């Protein structure tokens, strides 16, 4: 994590969000944005952003986003099916899965993605294990669960966040 470019990345992200918030590129907006971004970078030295740890891999990023939205819609359809049935047929379990990611941002994105995908909710992350609550558990074996839950995202996130 000793990234020498970390402040620059934080600065760039902050400035980008400033421009998006203001919705204009007028010179006065840009000047104030530069000042604000510099102040934030100075006062929050260990702030992270989406860019920290990010390896410029546009193809994998696009693949991740597409996969994420596909899974999100699938998750919602299955959840709608579950909720609209007259009796709620759940078979929950807390299972343990394994991740190979080490960068904190990648791990956070992985946990968030698990939360938003079909029937799973990350409860606790500890070392290389993520504890996942599974609404309709198909297996309780860590390896099988890892293949089922994590592998799809990890394939992309491993490339993006190493």
């Amino acid at each position, binding site marked *: 994590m000793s990234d020498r470019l970390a402040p620059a990345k934080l600065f760039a992200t902050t400035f980008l969000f400033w421009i998006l918030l203001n919705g204009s590129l007028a010179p006065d907006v840009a000047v104030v944005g530069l000042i604000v971004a510099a102040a934030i970078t100075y006062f929050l030295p260990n702030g992270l952003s989406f860019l920290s740890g990010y390896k410029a891999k546009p193809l994998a990023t696009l693949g991740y986003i597409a996969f994420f939205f596909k899974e999100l819609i699938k998750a919602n359809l299955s959840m709608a099916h579950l909720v609209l049935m007259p009796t709620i047929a759940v078979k929950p379990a807390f299972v343990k899965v394994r991740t190979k990611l080490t960068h904190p941002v990648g791990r956070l994105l992985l946990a968030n993605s698990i939360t938003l995908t079909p029937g799973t909710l990350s409860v*606790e992350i500890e070392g290389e294990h993520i504890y996942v609550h599974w609404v309709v558990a198909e297996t309780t074996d860590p390896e099988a669960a890892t293949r089922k839950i994590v592998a799809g995202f990890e394939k992309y996130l491993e490339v993006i966040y190493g």
Partner: protein
Amino acid sequence: MQSLLGAIVLTAGAVFLALGGLGVWRMPDTWTRIQAGTKATTLGMILSMAGAAILMPGWTIKLVLIALFLMFTNPLSSQVLARAAHRAGVKPDPRTRFDALAADEEAKR
């Protein structure tokens, strides 16, 4: 045409929001409620924002920012809540088959 498309997307989003409410109401225990609440409301929110952006193209940037912020904070708060529920010792649904987290914490002690 554009307003029709926007209306359809907006209504689809609202349907998912209502389904989220229904999930929070019907699900049997805390974690399943968190699951229903988070997923359905997140997708519903994204679709509502998309519908509003189609109806009012001038507002797109702000709507995208709202959707981004929510997509980031919502799973985070759900995870913190799920962890808190487990630590507070809330009883899971009797149908829960297996609790790896409780077993591991027991082993550590």
